């Protein structure tokens, strides 16, 4: 990455440049929604630059809540009760809301599962990509429009000069997810959080989108927090994996290690439940 967001904001980078330090460091994160048990319970993990961490778990395990907490996008009554989230040397939980807004999109961006609900149905996709650049003051209107075409090309949408004028409903599910990825990459964030990015897609389309993510990761040295329930996707994409169960991180290690020799009972059961493992 040649333009981390700190530079763009005109602030000096952290004194010891974050080469050996993790890009994202989550320590002892706890989140409650007011219920008797916390939604996220003392979760710690880190991600290095260019690394892919898979966060795997079933519905209600707290994996999406963890992602939203990192970006401070929790909806009330959700609330972070403890922990630190350090991104590129800065404690995100201590930032003012307008500073946090800078981090979202320019520092860390988010790809959702459901592109149809995440995209604005009455706005041309080109304008939605350009908007991401405009709100961060990264480009003039004309530049943003040109960048939108480039980004559509980068995510391999054919005929991008025509497609920028399309509305989301004119695109297939796979193309919509590519548009989401283009928006996420618009400000060249060093970290992308992808929350079940291919779950709603057919398996052949999923394969194409995963391939695209792999290529873009290599090209932009992206770090990726990949949230999924699918161990197959983890095996294909991730360097390391963290397994969540009932708000806790129950296992954490290299993908190879965890898949070959799962040490926690829950991971073993989860792997045994995957049809391919029967």
């Amino acid at each position: 990455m040649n333009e981390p967001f700190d530079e763009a904001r005109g602030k000096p980078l952290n004194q010891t440049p974050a080469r050996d330090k993790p890009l994202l460091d989550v320590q002892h994160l706890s989140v409650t929604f007011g219920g008797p048990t916390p939604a996220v319970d003392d979760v710690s993990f880190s991600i290095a630059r260019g690394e892919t961490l898979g966060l795997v778990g079933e519905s209600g395990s707290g994996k999406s809540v963890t992602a939203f907490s990192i970006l401070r996008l929790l909806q009330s009554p959700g609330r972070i009760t403890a922990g630190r989230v350090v991104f590129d040397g800065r404690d995100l939980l201590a930032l003012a809301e307008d500073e946090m807004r800078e981090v979202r999109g320019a520092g860390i961006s988010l790809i959702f599962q459901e592109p149809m609900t995440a995209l604005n149905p009455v706005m041309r996709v080109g304008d939605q990509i350009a908007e991401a650049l405009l709100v961060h003051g990264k480009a003039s209107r004309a530049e943003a429009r040109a960048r939108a075409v480039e980004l559509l090309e980068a995510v391999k949408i054919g005929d991008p000069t025509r497609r920028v004028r399309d509305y989301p409903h004119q695109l297939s599910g796979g193309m919509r997810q590519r548009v989401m990825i283009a928006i996420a990459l618009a400000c060249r964030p060093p970290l992308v959080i992808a929350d079940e990015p291919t779950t709603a897609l057919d398996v052949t389309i999923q394969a194409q989108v995963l391939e695209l993510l792999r290529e873009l990761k290599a090209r932009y040295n992206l770090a990726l927090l990949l949230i999924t329930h699918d161990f197959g996707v983890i095996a294909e994409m991730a360097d390391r994996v963290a397994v969540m169960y009932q708000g806790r991180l129950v296992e954490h290690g290299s993908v190879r290690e965890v898949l070959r020799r799962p040490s926690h009972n829950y991971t073993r059961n989860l792997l045994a439940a995957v049809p391919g493992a029967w």
Partner: protein
Amino acid sequence: MGTPLLEVRHLVKHFVRKQGLFRAPSVVKAVDNVTFAVDEGEMFGLVGESGSGKSTAGRCILRLIEPTSGEVFFRGENVLQFSSERMRMTRRDMQIVFQDPYSSLNPRMRVGDIVEEPLIIHRLGAKPERRARVAELFELVGLEPAHALRYPHEFSGGQRQRIGIARALALNPALVIADEAVSALDVSIQAQVVKLLLDLKARLKLTYLFVAHDLRLVEHICTRVAVMYMGKIVELGETSALFARPTHPYTQALLSAIPMLDPDAPRQRIELDPTSFEREAPLREIGAQHWAAV
């Protein structure tokens, strides 16, 4: 294998889409000349991606959607020629479990009443007998009979799917069409419900048409499988043969796209080249119990 319980021949369903006043309506060939047979006691997989026509085919068999043409033989009789009264009687024997455990149960009905409803519609038994049958069905699918008084929202997704299964089994059907019946569930819950389906198959001598998109799942539970692509069956065969030697370019692309659990397994993704095969090619035998449209 045994005799076919269900035989589908040249099934066609076209949807006509009107496109405004002055344009010719377009025809979507959702199911385009589909032929296959499901043997008694078999778990037959019908797989494909979104829009392949697999669910429409399943619904046409039950005449929940009226097919455009073709024949559907159930126990040797063409149900497409049945009167609506006769068809309703026949549906006792052919039931369906839907994908979405949230939208397929009426939220305003107690789950016991949901499971009892088919018995009332088919006028089977007096109230006490029906109630006893509901309790029996709840036990059969692994639910607490005492929970029959609750409403659907009080149950988890996996439990709701069990309720849907209990409802499907209320009339003692011979054939169950499971339309993506476990797709919406978490893997560990999915494994439990699949186990239940297999267990019920053995206990009640059920035959399943298992409509699904998850090939890993189908590979492990179905005896035979048919792969659908754009309304047609492009490959059909015994599961082991078809997965060992996928022959149609679409089947090859589909299988190569499945993420594998082994991070070191060699991966060779095959992209589908639509010009590499003839769309109208008929199925031909390419091996023992194995056909492909090549």
